[in-house]
């Protein structure tokens, strides 16, 4: 049997993870809140998002005062902090905004390997990134609370959007 929908979901989650990774790099260079958070992580710290059992994965590295996106792969990757989606379907629901991060944790759909304090910091960074990426109403569904979006942040958001494809 050829389960075409799995193939579609696999490429979708890989694409969205790549988008998140790129956005993480951009947002962490322009947004003060994320930069401050990232500052608390050790240099060279590698954060990984991966889908069990065998990928795809996305990797990012803390470098200086921001994150550097290291790309996606079709393998299961390891790092200092690994956010593991337990299965493809869960990853798809979460990464397409059908299931919020905190509900995903509540529903045991992700499992985390590594230091919890650093996981909390990384999650807060990703929350800000999601607020940048998603239009208001969707961000409200995905996040526990609305991120304040004063004018200067709106402008930075525009900046992130304009440079994201590159």
């Amino acid at each position, binding site marked *: 049997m050829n389960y075409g929908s799995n193939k579609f979901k696999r490429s979708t989650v890989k694409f969205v993870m790549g988008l998140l990774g790129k956005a993480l790099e951009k947002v962490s260079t322009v947004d003060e809140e994320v930069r401050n958070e990232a500052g608390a992580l050790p240099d060279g710290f590698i954060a990984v998002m991966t889908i069990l059992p065998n990928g795809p994965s996305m990797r990012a590295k803390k470098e200086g005062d921001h994150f550097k996106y290291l790309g996606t792969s079709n393998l299961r990757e390891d790092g200092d902090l690994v956010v593991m989606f337990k299965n493809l379907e869960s990853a798809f629901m979460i990464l397409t905004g059908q299931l919020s991060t905190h509900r995903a*944790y*509540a*529903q*045991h759909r992700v*499992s985390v*390997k*590594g230091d*919890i304090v650093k996981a*909390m910091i990384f999650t807060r960074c990703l929350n800000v990134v999601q607020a940048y990426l998603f239009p208001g109403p969707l961000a409200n569904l995905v996040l*526990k609370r609305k991120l304040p979006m004063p004018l200067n942040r709106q402008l930075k958001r525009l900046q992130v959007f304009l440079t994201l494809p590159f």
Partner: protein
Amino acid sequence: MLPEYFEFFAPVKIVSGKKAVENLPYELDQLQAKRPFIVTDKGIEQAGLIDIIRKAMDAGEMEIGAVFDGTPPDSSIAVVNEAAKIYKDNNCDSIVAVGGGSVIDTAKGINIVITEGVDDISKLMGAEVLKKPMKPFIVIPTTAGTGSEVTLVAMISNPEEDVKMPFTSYRLFPNAAIIDPRMTMTMPPKITAATGMDALTHAIEAYYCNQKNPFSDAYAITAIKMISQYLARAVKNGKDEEARYVMANAATIAGIAFSNSMVGAIHSLGHATGGVAHVPHGVAMSIFLPVGLEYNIPKSGKYIGELLLYFAGPEEYAKTREDQRPYRLIELINKLREELHELSGLPLTLKEAGVKEDQFEEIAEHTLNDGALMFNPRDLNKEEALELVKKAYYGK
């Protein structure tokens, strides 16, 4: 009515009741263990509780490998590493924890170090890092509070960084918990009160935190009923065997509730206060419970209000208007706290517990990095955490 998806796991065998400790050799034998390493602390040894263990082991014709009584409050990574050495030097093959949360979590730490064959536990911090099956592990709680005998987490303090490090893994569950009212009978009133409030907080947070489900609800409700009726009695008269027996079981039941539904902001605030200002966990729970409940009313008022039925009974529940129920519950919890304060000197504010104003900032910061916050229904930022700390400090 039901969450769209949930999981529930309670793999610890419960051996509960009169003279239950006498079954220790049998339970060890079931696990094919022959030379247990007994982990405890000086207070428990002095209370004569290890003699009960020694006698039971003698009757069961089983040898004790070694007794380690050097557990400090809140455990510590250095002590875990030291104790693991003694375990190896004495060719032990299993672990029996006899004590409160500090002892139980130390024992979990020792099990990690022995099983993974490392010399330093801090290398294995975090979640899901542990892969190998652990040594046979039996817990005999001597406080009625933490529920650590049925949880998958060990909180071990790292004094250098003023933090309590969590280790979590499904492998950390003990094989069995032996609940014997004789073991909590010697607990002093203030510790009885503090640890009982920890258990109550577990049950209450379990009833509204994010992983709540019908199974964890059943455990949470049962524990709340038991604790509301028996905690003050156990504090008033430590020799009240019935009260001790009910409280010991309630704490374990609450442990099963919260290890499935998780705890939230109240525990995050408490862990942070424990790490920064060394306030005992149960004392911190008692202080933050009303403050944290009030904070969660906007998101979880319905569930918090439902608890009035189990805490105060049907009459109180029926005569209180629905929108007033969460507030009434907080009022009654405050009444219980005051009663415990009168009976045992349990502190009512962070100020009484010795916290200093210049520690507020650090406590708020650590609160945000505590994993339990992930499971609190209402989000909490640093300013809000600071507000709650101040409320808990000034008592208003």
